[in-house]
């Protein structure tokens, strides 16, 4: 009668075969195509690209399919794949002012150059289950007109009057990259923003929410949220100018936050910044709130809330790190538990032999 501690290898293989069957589900139901996922679960694809930090719709769709719709698992697949990709260089900064706008709203001005463009949004829909979607749905014909207006960024308009801090100047320094150099503290804003951009949407959402409820309040306004495609360019040494690589869709949020000013500085508005691949407004807004909260040190604000605490936020924002360590509790801990078990037994035996208050223990401590 020996308890089986052998057989791990075969058990794993069998478990994986079961997983493959569970992933497929009922074989009578047609299998999902990547194009279906990419087209009809587009926001899931966007999130996987964003937190997976890899802009590739097809790979993200594949990851979602392979992960059975588990978003963090899908993000994991994309990140692990990303590890194997060579790195050519860093692109030029994207110009979101030149964005091909699909949606652009400001919550601070009723009208502004370019106007409010609602675009495809859940906002103002009534969240009533639409049973007609249970089957193939008829689409209402679309009437679209090209948005030919220019859409200057609201923050730049405000900055012209000095009402808001100017955008930080481009120092020409290459931006930090926490995937190439380990994050150290204190971290500069470039690394913080990179960390937040890869960070878990739910975590940032909760943190951003906490700032609104008074834990590190920053009095935010959604100055501007825009979504659309931008050009990505790479400076090519050989030819001496930037060449376009392609276009990506991004969502950008610039928040406008109060700043009381200091003895040497007049009060003015400050900024928080959020950016996500694809259409991800929740993520972008939450990121802007947290970015602003994390600027507490720079702006001389008292740091007392979790969202302002750089080490706390940046060390716990990554959902792969979080899920890995939380779920590693499933791994065997026989040995350390055994060590603890031995200790507790010994402590209990000592306790029974010499109840607390016994002089022995007191002496031992001196």
């Amino acid at each position, binding site marked *: 009668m020996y308890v089986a501690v052998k*057989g791990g290898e075969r058990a794993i293989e069998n478990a994986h075969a079961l997983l493959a069957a569970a992933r497929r589900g009922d074989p009578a139901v047609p299998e999902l195509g990547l194009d279906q996922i990419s087209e009809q679960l587009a926001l899931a694809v966007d999130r996987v690209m964003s937190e997976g930090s890899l802009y590739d719709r097809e790979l993200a769709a594949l990851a979602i399919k392979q992960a059975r719709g588990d978003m963090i698992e899908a993000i994991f697949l994309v990140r692990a794949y990303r590890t194997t990709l060579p790195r050519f260089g860093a692109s030029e900064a994207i110009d979101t002012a030149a964005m091909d706008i699909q949606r652009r709203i400001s919550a601070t001005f009723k009208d502004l150059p370019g106007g409010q463009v609602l675009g495809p949004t859940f906002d103002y829909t009534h969240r009533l289950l639409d049973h007609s979607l249970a089957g193939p749905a008829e689409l209402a014909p679309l009437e679209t007109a090209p948005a030919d207006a220019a859409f200057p960024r609201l923050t730049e308009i405000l900055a012209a009057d000095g009402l808001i801090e100017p955008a930080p100047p481009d120092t020409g320094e290459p931006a930090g990259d926490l995937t190439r150099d380990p994050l*150290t503290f204190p971290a500069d804003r470039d690394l913080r923003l990179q960390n937040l951009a890869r960070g878990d949407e739910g975590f940032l959402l909760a943190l951003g929410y906490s700032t609104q409820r008074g834990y590190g309040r920053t009095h935010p306004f959604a100055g501007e949220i825009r979504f659309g495609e931008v050009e990505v360019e790479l400076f090519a040494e050989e030819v001496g100018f930037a060449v376009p690589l392609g276009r990506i869709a991004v969502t950008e949020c610039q928040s406008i936050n109060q700043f009381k000013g200091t003895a040497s500085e007049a009060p003015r508005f400050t900024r928080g910044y959020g950016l996500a691949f694809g259409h991800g407004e929740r993520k972008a807004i939450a990121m802007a709130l947290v970015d602003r909260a994390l600027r507490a040190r720079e702006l001389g604000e008292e740091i007392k809330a979790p969202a302002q605490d750089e080490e706390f936020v940046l060390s716990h924002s990554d959902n792969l790190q979080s899920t890995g360590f939380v779920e*590693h509790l499933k791994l065997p801990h026989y*040995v350390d538990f055994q060590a603890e078990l*031995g200790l507790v037994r010994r402590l209990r035996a000592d306790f029974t032999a010499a109840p607390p208050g016994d002089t022995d223990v007191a002496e031992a401590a001196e």
Partner: protein
Amino acid sequence: MNAPAYNFAYLDEQTKRMIRRAILKAIAIPGYQVPFASREMPMPQGWGTGGVQVTAAILGPNDVLKVIDQGSDDTTNAVSIRKFFVKTAGVKITTSTADATIVQTRHRIPELPLTEQQVLVFQVPIPEPLRFLEPRETETRQMHALEEYGLMHVKLYEDISRHGQISTSYAYPVKVDGRYVMDPSPTPKFDNPKMNDCAALQLFGAGREKRIYAIPPYTRVVSLDFEDHPFEPRWSSGTCALCAATDSFLDEIITDDRGGRMFVCSDTDHCEIRRAAAPHVPETVTPGGSEASNSLPLEGGGLGRGSTDSPPVPPATPSPTLPLSGGGSEASTSGVDSGFRPAAGPGMTGRR
């Protein structure tokens, strides 16, 4: 879509070089946690990605790899990591401690003493021994820099004042080469003495926390203690039900719901070798309710080097050399079968 072709041992050569640089630095400053740009590996962080990256960086095509988890080659995660290297590096694998050139481990050090020809790679969840005393990295790094370890001693002292003994049974802090306090990873403190003056190079990888640290061969490793409360690696005296070993770390297995227990070696290779040598050891199952018999401290376990007044071990003479050749293909022809075979000669000796 075609399956992507991966580089030898998964990581690209640039990444391996980055990790090797961190390992070199770690060896040069024993016990110091070197930050490194940990990559996302195809297994979850917290499941051994640090150890996997270290192994991938030092692995050569002629290496023989052993992977254990909880002392056993056959626990699920050890199987998974071993398969990963079989798949991505095609190296020879073994379950025999003696035959391995690299042993990757989680939570145990093999019972068999390691040799100069071997490297032990630990998977580390939380590399910072001060983390649970001070959660902030900015603070703990400074404490290490200033060699400010009073807080740790206060913690151990509080243990003694509360329990009459130091109530840390695993991940028991050690001081390496008289300088850095180090977390030995969650190995039971029973294993701590094996780290001292060990012939093999010991490397520690923490992937999620992005840290690598090392104990070079023949380095003094002292478990923290007090003169009047010396470190005791004591472990419940017991006997392995399979091989009758009395000096190995034992796993407890619950055999029924009436308190029946049996104890078997945690190190399965150790147990198998002993059983092969003496095949007819009867199984013994501890009858229910007698658990106290297994909770007695190992008397006179005298591995007295824990006390603070023990004489210092002379500085290590052999220093490991690292092949820092570039591509894997070059490395494969260089005749270096273990990426980290320590060799005598000048190197980092006397660096500190």
